[in-house]
């Protein structure tokens, strides 16, 4: 059978596969939410999904548009307050994986979600801001980052550091006071980057099917390190694709209906 998929689907599937069954995952909205729910609906039925709205162990049928949709509340094991989710769960070290997106990432997995261009007081493009991300990036056991790859998002120098990866590399994160281990992978639409064990610099370790090393290098704003042993990401299976497409179709149908009329 000839299976075709989009780059977005490959990225979401590759990100979903990194989530182990049974772990507690703090989920950001957007791409992380799609990937985390795909994991739950395929290989990781016991994954505990936690959204920053305080919904613990939620199993939404459709992807939430906002981080606090009623769908998340209805399908949660329990709902706790914001002080509780951030202090008793995240800060206390009860979250295994933080799943984040961002506008920019640098070679050490540091993230910007605050502004692009100009300066803080006079930004060219002001973004919503970091929300829960700074403390998720610092305190979750590990961090998965999912982000489309391009020169505007994979940058030599962040315009603003919102959330910590490995700072300036080496042991600089260990010295920072951050209790979590930091990013374990950056999953993009082209491949997977993982930190070098010593320098902590993001290194291309897996290429998605049909993507060349040159394409990834051209989509990276710094001289990209490429692993000597480069893997090819296994393509999405028919099952993964059908579950993901069903999820997106249900989501589109749910969000296009007005609730007043």
């Amino acid at each position: 059978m000839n299976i075709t998929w989009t780059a977005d689907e490959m990225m979401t599937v590759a990100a979903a596969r990194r989530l182990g069954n049974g772990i507690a995952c703090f989920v950001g909205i957007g791409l992380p939410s799609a990937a985390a729910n795909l994991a739950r609906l395929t290989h990781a039925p016991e994954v505990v999904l936690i959204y920053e709205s305080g919904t613990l162990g939620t199993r939404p049928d459709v992807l939430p548009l906002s981080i606090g949709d009623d769908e998340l509340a209805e399908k949660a094991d329990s709902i706790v307050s914001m002080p509780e989710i951030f202090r008793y769960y995240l800060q206390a070290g009860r979250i295994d994986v933080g799943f984040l997106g961002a506008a920019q990432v640098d070679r050490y997995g540091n993230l910007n979600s605050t502004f692009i261009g100009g300066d803080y007081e006079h930004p060219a493009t002001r973004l919503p801001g970091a929300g829960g991300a700074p403390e998720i990036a610092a305190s979750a056991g590990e961090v998965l980052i999912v982000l489309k790859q391009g020169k505007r998002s994979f940058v030599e120098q962040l315009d603003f550091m919102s959330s910590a990866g490995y700072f300036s590399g080496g042991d600089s994160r260990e010295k920072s006071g951050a209790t979590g281990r930091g990013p374990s992978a950056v999953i993009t639409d082209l491949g997977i980057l993982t930190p070098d064990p010593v320098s902590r610099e993001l290194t291309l370790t897996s290429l998605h099917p049909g993507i060349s090393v040159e394409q990834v290098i051209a989509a990276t704003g710094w001289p990209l390190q490429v692993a000597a042993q480069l893997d090819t990401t296994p393509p999405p299976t028919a099952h993964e694709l059908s579950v993901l497409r069903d999820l997106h179709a249900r989501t589109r149908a749910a969000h296009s209906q007005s609730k007043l009329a």
Partner: protein
Amino acid sequence: MSQSLFMPLAEAVRHFVHDGDSVALEGFTHLIPFAAGHEIIRQEKRHLTLIRMTPDIIYDQMIGMGCADKLVFSWGGNPGVGSIHRFRDAYEHSWPRPLAIEEYSHAAMAAMYQAGASRLPFATLRGFIGNDLPQYNHNIRQVECPFSGERLAAVPALNPDVTILHAQRADRHGNVWIKGIVGAQKEAALAAKRVIVTVEEQVDELEAPLNAVILPHWTLAAVCVVPRGAHPSYAHGHYSRDNAFCIAWDAISRERDSFLAWMDRHVMQVRDFAETLQLITAAQRTELA
């Protein structure tokens, strides 16, 4: 005595929200007090310091209508949709007036409300590690633990002049029950000098289970019955989030003219929120037809 808590929303806003106040309209996606925000806009309150973890459409409207001098926040956007354009226009181009910002993270603001509710001067957290905000927001400082010597982030308590919430239900005494995603609403209420709550309905008895989130009537200044007062946000058990409206807001708010026209028709030229809802419903029916 407690009966005097119940009053029309317009009266509550007139009595308890003053020009220059710091005002927190809380509700994390859920139970956002839209009706109250519209009443503040209609009464043309000015020079407010608006406080909210997640300023979204209601603060976009209040900022665009010139109510605010300053915004204290940790994430400002239209969730799942994108930017809030009126906020950006105010911050980037000073329209309709300059807007100062004081930016934190969610973890910090939740802790700041907790400290405020506790009447402590500041909160500590293991926060802002590697984050650039402390360079610009000098209220994010460091404190040394007197026991371990660990360096922790310190942020000031939040004590709004007024906190405004929406909730499902109040009993005849004015005790309020909040159900579902509760965000930092309890903390924001107990941190405030005055609290206004709009509710879906008034009942005789709450019949709430033990450990329900209840705001006691004697901590509140006013309770106002406003059905669907959180629309396009939602009230768990009453109505869902109007995601279609939230998506439509992006186009309405992108340009100053279309924003002002919408606000004039749906907020300034109506008597109350019920009329606003009628207009929105009629427009959505036309679109579906």
